[in-house]
């Protein structure tokens, strides 16, 4: 859930519609969705709903209304399971508050309860704002999550006990119930003393197993990656040792893949322009055995206008890799607020543009023609012996 919050500022829409997330929900995801909308911690809203439910059931009505009017988030694949531990914690908390409210008459007092409710929410929001960095650290990590759930359950249980004792005392039944209570306390305490060490060792064992499993899974993932890519390539290199060109190509393509795996943010080449440019360059580099260095500044979502730009850029890379004779090709893509520009440059042999026959498809049709047909522009700068640079510009969709 925190992950979603941190991603919010980067969302394409400034004000995305509120949805009810499925993962991490406690009841129906209303509090979580609203929290994401308000950029608050879902815990704050959940507590607010619980608190307001105590006050004449207001929270329940609000929750139900939001539940009805908010669409559920689309999930692909299996639905994540509900966090029952949290639900139990909030349930117990609600019970305790209800008991307390009933005892003191605050809940039925109507307006009397408002200051408490509002004060509570205010205090929670203040707490939430206090030190976001530190709170985020607290809340992240599954182990922390579990322990906060325990704290919440403990607090709820304490409130229930206080509520019950208060009720008995108020109705004058405390003296009668005292012997029974003492007896129960002794029995429960005794059982706890017997079982506690066993429980503790069980919990420790479970945690140890869990970390071990995570570690093994990670090791397995790295091993699988190394095996599939690096070892495979090393085998191919040994087999092709006589063909220096092929060896270079293999090493280069493996280097690129490993680099992407290690350093590049995970990006989808069907969605992001920078990732798409990198993919095109990687494919042409593999096909022609000439390194293509890509530098991207900025990024944007791929749309139908940028398709022709990518095609033209690919053609320019093919020309540079195939005909220029340059040892390396540089590609530079820059996304600005209103346009996207891609430069493809080589320091190869160059050519005289006017000498290119009218029917040569590569330059005239695939690059210049394609860009102009689609509302963009292409400029080719070349001179014999001085390399070639193709500059492609396309306006972005407003």
């Amino acid at each position: 859930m925190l992950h979603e919050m941190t991603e919010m500022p980067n969302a394409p829409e400034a004000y995305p519609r509120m949805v009810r997330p499925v993962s991490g929900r406690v009841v129906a995801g209303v509090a979580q969705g609203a929290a994401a909308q308000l950029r608050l911690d879902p815990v704050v809203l959940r507590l607010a709903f619980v608190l307001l439910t105590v006050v004449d059931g207001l929270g329940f009505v609000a929750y139900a209304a939001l539940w009805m009017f908010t669409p559920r988030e689309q999930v692909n694949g299996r639905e994540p399971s509900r966090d029952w531990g949290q639900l139990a914690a909030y349930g117990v908390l609600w019970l305790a508050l209800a008991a307390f409210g009933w005892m003191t008459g605050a809940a039925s007092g109507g307006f009397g309860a408002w200051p408490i409710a509002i004060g509570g929410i205010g205090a929670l929001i203040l707490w939430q704002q206090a030190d976001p960095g530190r709170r985020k650290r607290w809340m992240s990590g599954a182990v922390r999550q579990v322990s906060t759930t325990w704290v919440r359950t403990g607090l709820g249980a304490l409130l229930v006990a206080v509520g019950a004792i208060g009720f008995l005392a108020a109705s004058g039944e405390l003296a009668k119930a005292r012997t029974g209570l003492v007896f129960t306390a002794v029995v429960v305490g005794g059982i706890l003393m017997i079982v506690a060490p066993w429980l503790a060792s069980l919990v420790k064992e479970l945690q140890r197993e869990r970390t071990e499993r995570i570690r093994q899974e990670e090791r397995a993932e790295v091993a699988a990656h190394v095996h599939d890519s690096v070892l495979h390539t090393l085998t191919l290199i040994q087999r092709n040792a006589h063909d220096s060109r092929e060896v270079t190509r293999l090493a280069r393509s493996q280097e690129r893949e490993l680099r992407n795996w290690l350093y590049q943010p995970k990006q989808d080449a069907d969605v992001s322009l920078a990732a798409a440019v990198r993919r095109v360059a990687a494919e042409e580099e593999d096909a022609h055995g000439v390194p293509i260095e890509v530098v991207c500044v900025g990024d944007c979502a791929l749309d139908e206008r940028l398709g022709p730009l990518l095609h033209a850029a690919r053609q320019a890379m093919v020309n540079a890799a195939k005909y220029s004779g340059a040892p390396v090709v540089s590609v530079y893509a820059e996304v600005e607020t209103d346009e996207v520009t891609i430069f493809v440059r080589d320091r190869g042999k160059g050519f005289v543009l006017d000498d290119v026959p009218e029917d040569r498809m590569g330059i005239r049709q695939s690059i210049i023609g394609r860009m102009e047909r689609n509302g963009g522009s292409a400029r080719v700068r070349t001179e014999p012996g001085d390399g070639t640079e193709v500059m492609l510009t396309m306006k972005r969709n407003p």
Partner: protein
Amino acid sequence: MKTVRVLIVDDHRLFRSGVRAELGPSIQVVGEAEDVDSAVAAIAELAPDVVLLDVHMPGGGGQEVLKRVLGSGSQVRFLALSVSDAAEDVIGVIRGGARGYVTKTISGTELTDAIVRVSEGDAVFSPRLAGFVLDAFASTEAPPIDPELDSLTQREREVLRLIARGYAYKEIAKELFISVKTVETHVSSVLRKLQLSNRHELSRWATARRLV
């Protein structure tokens, strides 16, 4: 022509000897070091003109060397040389005080040029570093705190763009109708901004890039 005295700091012996063999005659390799402690000691003892510094090394890496050497008031110049393309490493080592960043795929002649350039007090930007800088300085909506340090001039942007497009300094000079010296001045000024700007977005941008 004066020879430039260079110390190579890298934890891979094969790589050190490879660089040694590739460097041109204008470079004299005065020593090698393989970890942070030996690097700091060798710099103090040999006083090289330029230190070729690997980013990832046992004992804290290149940044630790920069911190200890530059922290003690030394004027030695550093050129970072790394296999890593991670923005975090690139920006980190430049902010730590290196005067340039090149990747290990660089050719011998280009590396020789870069060392000479750094020894003269100029900055060396690889296309990728130029791209990172453009990205980092563009990725802000907040108004800069110190306009002089926190934003690039139009001319500096043009120079960085050409570097990112794969132009050499000489080609940039020709393209923009300015002298190579002026190109060097612009790049040095960008380097200064990169090192001195306390816009925390810069560091945050570099780390955030890995976390996406």
